[in-house]
């Protein structure tokens, strides 16, 4: 989570600049795209870079997600933005989708362990699904800078909560 703050100042002061060039593997994988940014009222085109290094980063994120159950969203967003050079909004939406796939990959192990409690899972599923639907609608209407500030605030709160829990359980 601390890696999220690696380029904190740069993230909130500078606007996203799409990469002009692309490495061979990313080009072969056709990793480029475009979306209409509602807040900026323009089409943003982007090219993804460093696919191999990004893939390795995702392997680490997957390991963390599988072992800790945290979804590793914060780490994935950093890999998307700083290594793969994705725009923040593309990074957030991609991360949300990939979290679903990460959860799929681990589900049989969790089922076998018998640690999944329905009375905990059901309200969480309702809350996160409604939140994700609303968040997905709001995302394209806010600026990249606001999105990044929100991201840093939430990661900071998560760090504080984990530290608090860790200290209190001693």
């Amino acid at each position, binding site marked *: 989570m601390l890696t999220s703050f690696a380029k904190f100042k740069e993230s909130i002061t500078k606007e996203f600049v799409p990469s002009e060039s692309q490495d061979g593997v990313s080009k*072969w*994988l*056709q990793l480029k795209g*475009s979306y*209409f940014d509602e807040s900026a009222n323009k*089409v943003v085109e982007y090219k993804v870079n460093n696919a191999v290094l990004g893939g390795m980063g995702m392997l680490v994120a997957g390991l963390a997600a599988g072992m800790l159950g945290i979804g590793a969203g914060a780490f994935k967003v950093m890999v998307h933005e700083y290594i793969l050079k994705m725009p923040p909004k593309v990074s957030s939406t991609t991360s949300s*989708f990939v979290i*679903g*796939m990460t*959860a*799929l*990959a*681990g*589900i*049989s*192990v969790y*089922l*076998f362990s*018998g*640690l*999944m*409690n*329905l*009375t*905990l*899972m*059901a*309200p969480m*599923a*309702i809350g996160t*699904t*409604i939140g994700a*639907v609303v968040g997905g609608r709001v995302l394209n209407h806010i600026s990249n800078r606001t999105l990044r500030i929100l991201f840093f605030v939430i990661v900071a709160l998560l760090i504080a909560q984990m530290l608090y829990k860790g200290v209190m359980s001693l």
Partner: protein
Amino acid sequence: MRVNKLGGSEPKFEKAIGYLLIIGVIISLLLEIVGVVILYRSYGNLNISQDANMYIKGRDFFSFIYQQITEKHTTNAILFMTAGIIVLILTPYVRVIASVFYFAWQRNIRYVLVTLFVLVVVTLSLAFH
């Protein structure tokens, strides 16, 4: 056909995949809400229960689905909440299967192979613990 803001037309197949995800999420959400409402009516609260019936268990995901179809559930709340979780888990899986067909329809062999690889990995992880 709907025209998107990039000026291009949105392929029907792509729209269908989008609807597939939305339908899966809505069905799952409704099942979970019904389950939680029944749970609240039965127990009078929504506290996290340590009752053994509230813990779901299975050899793997596919045998867990089979087990849910063949076994009798102790309460309707468990039935609905479990069904909601199953639909929620199956939604992205079905989306990957649909993506294989989507890329095949687009004749994008490269991405058919990439998506097939993801499908195999995910299927294996669902079939074995």
